[in-house]
C-alpha cells in the first residue's frame, strides 16, 4: 500500500500548473484503479478517445464506442451547449471538455490546465467512488466528486495552492443562481477540507485512501437533503439568473445582497454571503461592483460576517441582534438583557 502511495504521489505531486496531459492522466488512473480500464475517456472537444496504449483492446473499445446509441448526441450537447464535462455511468464514459468551461470552479487566476485537471478529478470521483453516481442522491454524489477533486488538487499542487480557494464560493453562487442548482451545493464539504489543508498529509495517502477520505468528508459534511430542500426554497426566486449575471447584469446580486443582509437563517446567510463575496471580490468576469451602494454592502456584510463568526452558528439570529451573546462567570453563554425593548 505504501508503495502505491509513493507512486501515486510522485507522479502527481507538484504538477506543472500549465500542463494537462490527458493521456498521462489516464495511464496514471489505470495504474491506480485498474477497473477504470473499461471506462471510455473522451476528449469531447476533439471527438477523440484517449487510450494511451496501442493494442487490440483499443480497437475493441473504439468499436464499442461507435456502437453506443445516443453517445454522439450527448457529446454534442456537452461540447456545444453545456460547454461542460460529465461522467456517464450509462455509457461508461468520461466526457471531458478540454477547453474553458462555461462556469468556472477555481480562482480566476488559475490556469486552464488546472481547471481541466480539477474537472477530470471531479469526474473520476464519480467513476471510482461508491455512492458518487447520480442515482444515489445527486447532491451527495457531487459532494463526493468535489471532495475527491479538492484532495487531488492539494496532492498535485501542494496544500498551499490558492487556486482551489474560490471553489466554496463558486459552488454557492451557482447553487443560488443556476437552474439545476440544488444538486451541486458542495461548499460545506469543500470548506471543511480546505480548513484542514495543513493538518492532513495529503501526499501520504494511497489512491484507495484518497477515495475513502473523499467519501468520508462528503458523508460527514454534506447538507442533509431536508435542509438542502429548505435552503433551496429560500433561494427559489434567484433561480435561473446566472446567465444575466454572466452578462454583467447586477440586479440579481442586489436582490441577493438584500436577502443576505436581512436573513435570520444561518445557512441562507452563510451561502448567500459566500456567493456575494465572490462577486464583490471581483472573481466574476463582467461583474464590477463599485460605488456607494456596493461599498455599503461590503461594509454591512463584513459586520454581519463578524457577528456570524463570533457567535455560535446554531444560535445565529435567535434574538442575537438585540441580545448579543456574552460569557458569564460560569462560562455559560447568555443573552444580555434586551435593553431597547424593555
Amino acid at each position, binding site marked *: *500500500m*505504501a508503495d502505491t502511495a509513493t507512486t501515486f504521489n510522485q507522479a502527481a505531486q507538484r504538477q506543472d500548473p500549465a500542463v494537462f496531459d490527458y493521456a498521462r492522466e489516464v495511464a496514471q488512473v489505470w495504474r491506480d484503479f485498474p477497473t477504470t480500464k473499461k471506462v471510455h475517456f473522451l476528449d469531447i472537444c476533439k471527438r477523440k478517445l484517449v487510450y494511451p496504449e496501442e493494442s487490440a483492446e483499443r480497437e475493441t473499445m473504439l468499436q464499442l464506442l461507435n456502437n453506443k446509441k445516443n453517445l454522439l448526441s450527448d457529446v454534442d450537447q456537452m461540447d456545444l451547449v453545456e460547454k461542460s464535462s460529465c461522467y456517464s455511468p450509462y455509457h461508461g464514459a468520461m466526457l471531458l471538455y478540454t477547453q474553458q468551461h462555461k462556469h468556472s470552479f477555481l480562482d480566476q487566476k488559475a490556469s486552464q490546465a488546472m481547471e481541466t485537471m480539477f474537472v477530470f478529478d471531479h469526474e473520476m470521483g464519480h467513476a471510482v467512488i461508491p*455512492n458518487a453516481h447520480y442515482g*444515489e*442522491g445527486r447532491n*451527495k454524489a457531487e459532494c463526493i466528486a468535489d471532495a475527491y477533486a479538492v484532495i487531488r488538487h492539494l496532492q498535485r499542487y501542494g*496544500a498551499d495552492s490558492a487556486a482551489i480557494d474560490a471553489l466554496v464560493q463558486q459552488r454557492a453562487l451557482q447553487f443560488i443562481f443556476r437552474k439545476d442548482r440544488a444538486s451541486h451545493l458542495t461548499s460545506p464539504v469543500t470548506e471543511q477540507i480546505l480548513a*484542514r489543508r*495543513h*493538518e*492532513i*498529509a495529503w501526499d*501520504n*495517502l*494511497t489512491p484507495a*485512501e484518497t477515495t*475513502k*477520505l473523499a467519501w*468520508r*468528508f462528503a*458523508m*460527514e459534511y*454534506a447538507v*442533509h*437533503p*431536508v*435542509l438542502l430542500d*429548505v435552503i433551496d426554497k429560500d433561494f427559489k426566486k434567484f433561480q435561473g439568473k446566472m446567465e444575466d449575471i454572466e452578462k454583467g447584469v447586477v440586479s440579481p446580486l442586489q436582490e441577493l445582497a438584500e436577502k443576505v443582509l436581512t436573513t435570520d437563517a*444561518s*445557512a441562507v446567510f452563510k451561502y448567500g454571503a459566500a456567493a456575494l463575496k465572490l462577486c464583490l471580490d471581483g472573481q466574476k468576469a463582467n461583474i464590477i461592483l463599485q460605488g456607494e451602494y456596493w461599498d455599503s454592502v461590503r461594509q454591512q456584510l463584513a459586520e454581519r460576517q463578524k457577528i456570524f463568526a463570533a457567535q*455560535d*452558528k*446554531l*444560535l445565529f439570529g*435567535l*434574538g442575537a441582534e438585540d*441580545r448579543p451573546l456574552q460569557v458569564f462567570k*460560569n*462560562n*455559560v*453563554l*447568555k*443573552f444580555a438583557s*434586551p435593553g431597547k*425593548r424593555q
Partner: protein
Amino acid sequence: MTKIAPVFNQNVQRQDPAVFDYAREVEQVWRDFPETKDKVFFLDICAEQKLIYPEESEQKQKIQQHIDGNRYILSTIEEYNTVEKSSCCAPAFNDAKCLLLYTKKHAMDLITKTATAAQETAFVFDHELGHAIIPDAGYRGNRNMAECIADAYAVIRHFQRFGADSTAVDALVGGRSFLFAFKRNRASHFTSPVVEKILARRYDIAWDSLTPQQTTQLAWRFAMEYAMHPVLLDTVDRDLKKLQGKIGDIKNGDTDALEDLVWKVLSTNISDVFKCGAAALKFCLDGQMANIILQGEYWDNVRQRLAEKQKIFTAQAKLLFSLGAEDRPLQRTIPSNVIKFKP
C-alpha cells in the same frame, strides 16, 4: 418574544423530578404555542378518562366525540397501550394531531435508568410534542430527521426543566445507538449524532434564556446540522444488518447478539460503525440494560480492548480513522504540524 421567555422558563425550571402533571403541561403548551390549541390533542392512553383538556368547554366535548368515533385513533391507543407500551404522535382529524402519551413505565428505557418515571414521561411528552409542533418533524417527510428534531427538542427541554447538570438524559446517545443496532426498523430513530452534540454543549448555551419559539428553532437547527445523511445512515444500517431484530433475545438475557456486536465493533474500519457500535456496547457494559450483566474474563477483555480502540478513535481525526492507522500510526511532524503516517 422576549416576554414569553421568562414565563416559559419560570414555570418549568428545576422541575420536581418526581412529578409529571399532564394537565399542567398541556396548559403550558397552550400558553407557549397558542396556535396549536385545537390542532394538537393530548391523550393519556393509560387512563380511564383519556382526553387531557384542562378547560371545561363545548370544544372539549366535540373533541371527545371525534376521538370516540375515530377508529384509527382508538386502535392506535389500544396498540400503544397494550403491545408497544410506548407513546406516539398520530394524525387525527382535519389535519390535527393526537399526542398519545403512555404514562406508565415505557417498554424501553430511553433515558438513564436511574431517572424517575416522571422524568421519563416528561421526556417522552416533549419528544412527541416536538413531532407535533416543529416543522419537518412530522412523519410525512424524512423519518429519521423527524426523530432527530423530536429528540433534540426533548433534550433541550430536559435541560430547561431540570438544569444542564441533570445526567438523566446522558444515556440517550447509547440507548438510541443500542436500539439502532438491535431493533427491527431501527434506521428511523438514529438520533445519537444530534443528541451527542447537544450534550457536548450543555454548558455552552443558556438554555433557560430561550423562548419557546427559539427552543423549537434551536432543536430544528441542531437536527439539521448533525443528523446523519441518509446515504451514510443506509451504509451503517447495512453494516449492522445481521444484528437486527435481536433485541428480544438480549432482553431475555441472551448475550450472543452482544458478542456479535463486540466482534463487529472491534474489527470495523468504518468510523461511524465503530462509533455507533461502541456507544451501543458501552450502554450494555455500563449496566443500562436490565437483565444484562456482563461480567467475567471475556467481558473484562472486551472493556479493555474497547477502551484502547476508543483512545485511538479519539486521538485520531475521526475522518482519518483506520486509514492505515494500525501499521502507520498518525504522528505530528515538526515543524509543519502536518499529520503524517509512519512509513
